[in-house]
């Protein structure tokens, strides 16, 4: 039913909720006119008579099923047979410490609860230096992946005549022997397309393959990866790098379209650091302040004190404007300090990431952290004084996938101590100056 046609043009101001509605696009009209969104399962080609027949049959079957249902069900106890798995005590959970690669790179240390060999719950390993008992949503959801009926259990063969068909591993072996025989002499022209993985078994398999086909190409690709950021750091510094944040020290965090607590390799340590910077134990403790600039409301946007919706295309411009603001207020040295992220008020250290380039991910988080600690801090920012150190060099200026750009706290120490709610009055003003549309959200 065309609502708009029947109601006619409303008198007074015409309100609309989206550009699609305003311009009455075809997709929007279809959405309005259909009862269910596209893709929802509907009972099509069913007459009223058929529907009543189906319902009647269902009720009759349910009634018939109830009569034998009154009997006590025949409950079987299936025991183990010849081999009893070690450590399994029926009725008691058995925990396995394991690790799982993350889609964005890195890995997590996990503790998996199993009952009689079936995994039921995934939690972070309390002894793992990065997880410390916590885990990411990816790890939480991993149990669902295990029991996913759509999970690929066998190879699929793209038959030229019949399309995609299920195959067995024996089929794959037979096909592989024939297929790879053509590439025996070095493997030129052969390419393996995989998703990036950080697993020793995977690396061993890769090494075996590359030893057999030294001239083959190994390409790792992930549609939603952080390759752009790595490539940006390579452009800036000459080597591919990845940031390691220490939010625990940050007073002001500006997130440019980045869901740093949820959806990336360092999410757990980021969230922990953010929590530490946010937590108030005594009256003199200060909360960090989080500004989120992003096109959609992400987890970080929910956490933020100040949230600005901005189209992705405008975020680089925002970064430039922010840099200009810092420049105007604090001078070049402060901007450099912020850009390098070496200030006390917030760290965004960029670590060399040689494995990344080779299509692998570093997942030894503990080692990475300890290396970070040893790294020199060329520029320290203490008590409002800027002390230049050695080795200072500028960071990528406008990084597209924005990072938590650190800034130093504004306002004098005394004012901060006396009014813990408005810890950073100067910064509020600063942001209000540069972000006229900033929605001030009380972090109550």
């Amino acid at each position, binding site marked *: 039913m065309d609502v708009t046609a029947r109601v006619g043009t409303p008198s007074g101001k015409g309100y609309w909720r989206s550009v699609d509605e305003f311009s009455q696009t075809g997709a929007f009209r279809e959405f309005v006119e259909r009862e269910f969104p596209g893709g929802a399962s509907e009972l099509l080609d069913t007459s009223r008579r058929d529907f009543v027949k189906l319902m009647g049959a269902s009720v009759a079957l349910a009634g018939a099923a109830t009569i034998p249902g009154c009997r*006590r069900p025949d*409950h*079987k106890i299936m025991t183990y047979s010849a*081999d009893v798995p070690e450590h399994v005590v029926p009725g008691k959970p058995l925990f396995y410490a394991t690790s799982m690669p993350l889609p964005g790179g890195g890995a997590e240390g996990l503790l998996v609860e199993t009952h009689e060999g079936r995994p039921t719950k995934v939690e972070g390993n309390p002894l793992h230096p990065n997880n410390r008992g916590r885990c990411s949503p990816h790890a939480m959801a991993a149990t669902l992946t295990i029991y996913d009926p759509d999970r690929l259990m066998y190879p699929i063969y793209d038959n030229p005549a019949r399309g995609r068909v299920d195959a067995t591993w024996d089929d794959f072996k037979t096909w592989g022997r024939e297929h790879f025989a053509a590439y025996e002499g070095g493997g030129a022209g052969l390419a393996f397309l995989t998703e990036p993985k950080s697993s020793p078994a995977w690396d061993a398999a890769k090494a075996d393959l590359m030893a057999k086909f030294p001239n083959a190409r190994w390409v790792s690709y992930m549609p939603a990866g952080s390759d752009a950021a790595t490539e940006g750091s390579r452009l800036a510094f000459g080597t591919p790098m990845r940031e390691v944040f220490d939010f625990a020290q940050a007073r002001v965090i500006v997130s440019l379209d980045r869901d740093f607590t949820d959806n990336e390799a360092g999410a757990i340590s980021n969230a922990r650091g953010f929590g530490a910077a946010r937590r108030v134990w005594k009256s003199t403790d200060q909360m960090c302040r989080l500004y989120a600039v992003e096109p959609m409301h992400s987890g970080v946007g929910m956490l933020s004190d100040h949230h600005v919706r901005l189209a992705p295309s405008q975020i680089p411009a925002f970064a430039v404007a922010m840099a200009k603001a810092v420049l105007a207020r604090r001078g070049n040295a402060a901007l450099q300090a912020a850009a390098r992220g070496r200030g006390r008020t917030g760290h965004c250290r960029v670590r060399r990431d040689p494995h990344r380039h080779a299509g692998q991910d570093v997942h030894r988080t503990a080692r990475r952290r300890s290396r970070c600690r040893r790294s020199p801090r060329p520029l320290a920012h203490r008590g409002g004084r800027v002390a230049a150190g050695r080795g200072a060099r500028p960071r990528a200026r406008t990084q597209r996938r924005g990072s938590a750009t650190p800034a130093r706290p504004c306002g004098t120490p005394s004012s901060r101590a006396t009014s813990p709610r408005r810890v950073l009055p100067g910064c509020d003003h600063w942001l209000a100056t540069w972000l006229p549309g900033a929605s001030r959200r009380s972090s109550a």
Partner: protein
Amino acid sequence: MSLMFPKWMNALPTLGAIASMGGVVTVIAGTWYWATPSFFEVGYQPTQPGTGFNHKIHAGKLGMDCRYCHSNVEKSPEANIPAVSTCYGCHGPNKVSPARSTATDEKTQFIRDAFDADESIEWRRVHKLPDYVRNFPHDVHLSAGVSCLSCHGQIMSMPVVHQAESLSMSFCLDCHRHPEQALVPKDKVTDLRWVAGELEARAAGQGTTNTDELTGMLWNAPPQACGACHQ
């Protein structure tokens, strides 16, 4: 003028009241007696695979301890049914068999078949608590000194196991309210013949154990809160 209703109909309201009261009493009494676990559950005896497991021979005649097969009963909430390999330990080919005969070999053939095929034996469950009883830990009850006999009956004299007690909520609560009626020393928990004699004597006031001492050794008073079992 003839009467529209005969006179005897005056008694109808009284009769009706008595009949409906009788009906109510009948329904309550019937439900009370028949629609209870003690009617539906006690005596449940499913057909076990093969020739079944004869508790009367193994536990009664041969004197095997319950925990030889139900080995995890002291460390797990569930009393496990033994793996096929446990049966095979005695009933494998050329194994020690106290009453070895052709008849015994035929009866136990299903064990060797299952072991050779690496298949499970589909034992039928006899004792089953409802799903809304989320917590019944065997290990806790054993370590408190509740004998197998209290819930499972005299298993040692059952050729095929059947359910001996109702396992209803009042059955549980009676014991949780008066644990001194059921507790036995922990080393006697699986000695069902001794326990049967002791509990009988105790009911007659001639028990040989100090029930105060037994209840005093409990870590906690037996819980009577809903959440203890219906977690």
